[in-house]
C-alpha cells in the first residue's frame, strides 16, 4: 500500500489488512473487537480499583501489608490499561513500542527508587535540628 498522505485510496477509509497492530495503530479488526477490548479493560479496572479502595479501608489486612497490596493492585491495573486500552501487544509491529516502554519503566524506576533511597539516607544521616541550631553563631 502507498504511504503517501495524499493517496486517494487511503481517504476512502479502507485501512490495510493486517493481523497485529501497535499502540496508535488502526487495526483491521471490526469495531466489535474494540468494544470487547474496552469492556474487558473496564471490567478488570473496576475490580482492581474496588479492591484497592477496599484494601485501604479494611482492617482485615495486617496494616503494614496494606501499602504493598495497594501498589500491587496499581501495577496490575496499569498493566490492564496498557493491554486493553493502549493495545500494547507482543506482535512484531510492536517491538519498538515495547522496547521504548521497557526503557521508560527503567527510567521511572531509577528516578523514584533512587530518589527515595538517596534522600532517605541523607535524611537519616543529617544532624538533628536541635544540634544544628546550637551550631549557629
Amino acid at each position, binding site marked *: 500500500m502507498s504511504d503517501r498522505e495524499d493517496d486517494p485510496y487511503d481517504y476512502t477509509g479502507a485501512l490495510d489488512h*493486517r493481523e497485529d497492530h501497535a499502540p496508535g495503530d488502526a487495526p483491521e479488526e471490526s469495531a466489535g473487537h474494540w468494544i470487547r477490548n474496552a469492556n474487558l479493560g473496564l471490567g478488570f479496572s473496576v475490580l482492581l480499583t474496588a479492591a484497592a479502595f477496599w484494601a485501604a479501608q479494611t482492617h482485615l489486612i495486617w496494616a503494614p501489608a496494606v501499602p504493598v497490596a495497594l501498589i500491587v493492585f496499581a501495577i496490575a491495573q496499569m498493566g490492564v*490499561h496498557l493491554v486493553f486500552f493502549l493495545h500494547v501487544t507482543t506482535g512484531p509491529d510492536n517491538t519498538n513500542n515495547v522496547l521504548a516502554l521497557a526503557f521508560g519503566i527503567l527510567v521511572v524506576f531509577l528516578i523514584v527508587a533512587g530518589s527515595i533511597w538517596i534522600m532517605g539516607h541523607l535524611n537519616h544521616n543529617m544532624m538533628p535540628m536541635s544540634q544544628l541550631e546550637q551550631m549557629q553563631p
Partner: protein
Amino acid sequence: MSDSSLPAAVAALRRLREDPHRLGHSGHGEGPAEGIGSGGTGPATKRVIVGYGFWLFLLSDIVMFACFFATFAVQRGATAGGPGLPQIVEVPRVAWETAALLLSSYTCGLSFAATNARSLLWTQVFLLITGLLGLAFVGMELQEFLSLFARGITPQRSGMLSAFFGLVGLHGLHVTLAGLWLLTMMAQVQVKGFRREIVHRLICFNLFWHALDIVWIGVFTIVYLMGSRA
C-alpha cells in the same frame, strides 16, 4: 532431490516449526505483513510511525510525572507542623473522581471503536461523553483544591503540600488540556471527516487520554489511598 518434491504436509509442518505463531504474517497466510516496521518488509506505514512517535512523547511525559512522584515520596513526611495527608484526603471524593476518569477512559475506547467502524455519530457521542466525564473530574478536583485553600491548606504551607499540589495539579492541568484537544478533535472530525491524518490525530488523542488514566492510578494509590492511612 529438491525441496519442491516434499509432500505439502511436510512443508507446512516445517513452516509451523520455524514460526509457530505466524508472527509477522497476515492472518490468511499470504506472506509477511507489509509496513509493520520490523525491517523485513520495507518501511513502516505512517500510522505505525505516528503511533511510535506519540508513544515516545507519552513515555517522556510519564518520566516527568515520575519526577513529581519521587518529589512527593521524599516530601510526604515534611509537614513542618502543618496538616498531614490524613487531614487532606477525602476518600469518597477520590472514589468519585476515579470513577469519572475510568468511565471516561472506557467511553474513549468506545469512540475509537466507532472511529474504526467509520461512524461519525457514535464517534462524536462517545467523545462528548468522554469530555463531560473529564469535565466532571476536573470540577471535583477544583472543588477539592478550593475547599483545602479555604481551610488554609495551601502549597506554600509545607514541603509535603507543595509536592501534593504540584503532582495532583499537574495531572489536573493535563486533563484540562486534553479536554481542549478533545473539543478540537470533535470539530475536526465534524468538518473534515475520517481523513487519514484526522484518524491519526484521534489515535494520538486516545493514547493521551488513556495515559492520563494510568497516571491517575498512581496518584490515587500513592497520594490518596496510602495517604489516608499514613
